[in-house]
């Protein structure tokens, strides 16, 4: 447990630094960069959360989008308050996930991967055909209230940070252990009289509610959302964050999100060859560090002799 406490303290500190930075830094671009990393990290953490039960959830993008659209509808069409928009986004995404999960989690592996992919595309195509939410052009003018606008980035980082810590806490709780038990052998879980399906649904609902909240935050910081933002490719990129960061530990998801977001921004300046570099970077990363950045750090740590604390990062399989 002391190690856990250390991690909580470290993340709380990091969170404070992030919030303080969002309040102090006056350069809009830097602030936006922090927000992009934060939302990417949240997406990565949520995708990884469902990976705990061994499923690759392409619908990560769909639930993020459901949250963003729910919040957008509440603030722009009904002029509702921001807090309500955020809560509703989490609740709606969670409810949809409950139904989705209850039906689809009976299958697993490649079948779940592909069904979540199909679900994501259906949801996206439905947005494009709905005029009230702007069809393909998307929704515009999703702003936080003027009074809190200057503090919005700090609020956003604070909420995302707390959600991330929450997700980590759940992962370390008995429930989280159950998730991992299902991944390694669901028959054993079943044999002690626990409904595997219910546990899986709970996992997907938690991740989706967090995604819904994240979507609401994103919609208000981006001000504009469109169906094209929530296609299956988003989930694919998020998986790259997780994989390149290293999926053994949640820190990996954060590292991967930060690394690839910054790399993406840097490559934007490189010009037309952006995609080639990005694709190449993913392949090379997968070849030279199959365990991701955290795995690499671990190896380096071992070699430098301070193995014990770092090695324990990967202890819980």
């Amino acid at each position: 447990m002391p190690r856990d406490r250390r991690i909580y303290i470290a993340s709380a500190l990091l969170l404070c630094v992030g919030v303080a930075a969002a309040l102090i830094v006056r350069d809009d671009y830097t602030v936006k960069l922090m927000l992009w990393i934060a939302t990417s990290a949240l997406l990565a953490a949520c995708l990884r959360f469902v990976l705990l039960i061994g499923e690759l959830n392409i619908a990560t993008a769909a639930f993020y989008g459901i949250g963003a659209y729910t919040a957008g509808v509440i603030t722009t069409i009904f002029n509702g308050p921001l807090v309500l928009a955020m809560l509703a986004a989490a609740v709606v995404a969670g409810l949809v996930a409950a139904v989705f999960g209850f039906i689809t989690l009976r299958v697993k592996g490649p079948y779940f991967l592909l069904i979540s992919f199909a679900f994501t595309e259906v949801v996206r195509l439905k947005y494009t055909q709905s005029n009230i939410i702007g069809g393909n052009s998307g929704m515009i003018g999703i702003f936080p209230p003027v009074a809190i606008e200057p503090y919005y980035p700090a609020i956003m980082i604070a909420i995302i940070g707390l959600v991330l810590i929450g997700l980590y806490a759940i992962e370390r709780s008995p429930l989280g252990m159950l998730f991992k038990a299902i991944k390694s052998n669901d028959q054993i879980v079943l044999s002690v009289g626990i409904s595997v399906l219910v546990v899986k649904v709970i996992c997907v609902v938690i991740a989706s509610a967090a995604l819904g909240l994240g979507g609401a935050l994103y919609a208000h910081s981006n001000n504009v959302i469109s169906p094209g933002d929530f296609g299956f490719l988003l989930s694919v990129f998020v998986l790259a964050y997780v994989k390149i960061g290293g999926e053994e530990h949640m820190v990996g998801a954060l590292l991967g999100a930060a690394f690839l977001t910054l790399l993406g921004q840097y490559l934007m300046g490189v010009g037309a060859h952006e995609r080639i570099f990005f694709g190449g970077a993913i392949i090379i990363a997968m070849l030279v560090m199959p365990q991701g950045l955290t795995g690499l750090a671990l190896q380096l740590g071992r070699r430098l002799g301070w193995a014990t604390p770092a090695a324990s990062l990967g202890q819980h399989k």
Partner: protein
Amino acid sequence: MDLTVQLIVNTLQIGAVYVLFSLGLTLIFGVMKIVNFAHGEFFTAAALAMSVVVPWFAKALGLSAIPVFALSFCVSVLVVLALGLVVYKFGFERYLRDLIGSFIVSIGFVLLLEGLYLEIFGGAPRIIPPLIPGVANILGAAITWQRLLICFLALAITFGLYFLVARTKLGLALRAVAEDQEAAMLQGIKYRRVALYGFLIGCGLAGAAGAFMAPLAAITTFMGADFLIKAFIIIIIGGLGSIPGAILGGFIIAAIESFGSYYFDSSTATIALFVLVIVGLLVRPQGIMGHAER
């Protein structure tokens, strides 16, 4: 024009190429247990290769259309096989049977190859002359002769593959590996070698489909993407890893597209496809022809 016949003819001509493409994807899944997102890039590579090689052969050798196409077809498929070998060696080889790892690697290749194609071939569509001119009339339905020919060639390759898998030693190894990799290895089957062959055959099928589409469609650097998404739907409906399933699924999807576009509209037909997948999976998760996987 007899409407029903026309819609059926449409189904067959679209379906034949879908089947070819999906067969490759399902074969690769069966043998390697990976979902290859880069499958569409092999299709595109073959079509792009055709757009370069066909005019070149026509000019350099002065042959008539059919031999030029036959030669170009072989060259294009070879190009795809070479590309497939590179992708396998520098990517998938280390992620066999790792669904998530291989998925990421395939995404890396999608981005890399798409970027490279655009860099090399540019954004403008490319076109090659028709294989044979003219329009045939079947029971009141119109179809171009080249479509008809390509339809037959695609079916011939499909039967060829069926024979290969059902009757040859390699086919037996492929089936054994797909069924139970560990048991197959205990029987002395070299898994890595079989996986490589399976992957290359899959790439070759994607390449053949791409080469066949080259005279039929505008050749662009992103034309594989549409086929990839359709193929996913096809192999889910047919059952992952199932060869008869991919054949049946290919024609079912083509039928929905053909009839759905007529009775509703194309955009609605696209949504219907995805909804069908979800409903289908719920009723029969293993697909029409798939085996239940524990």
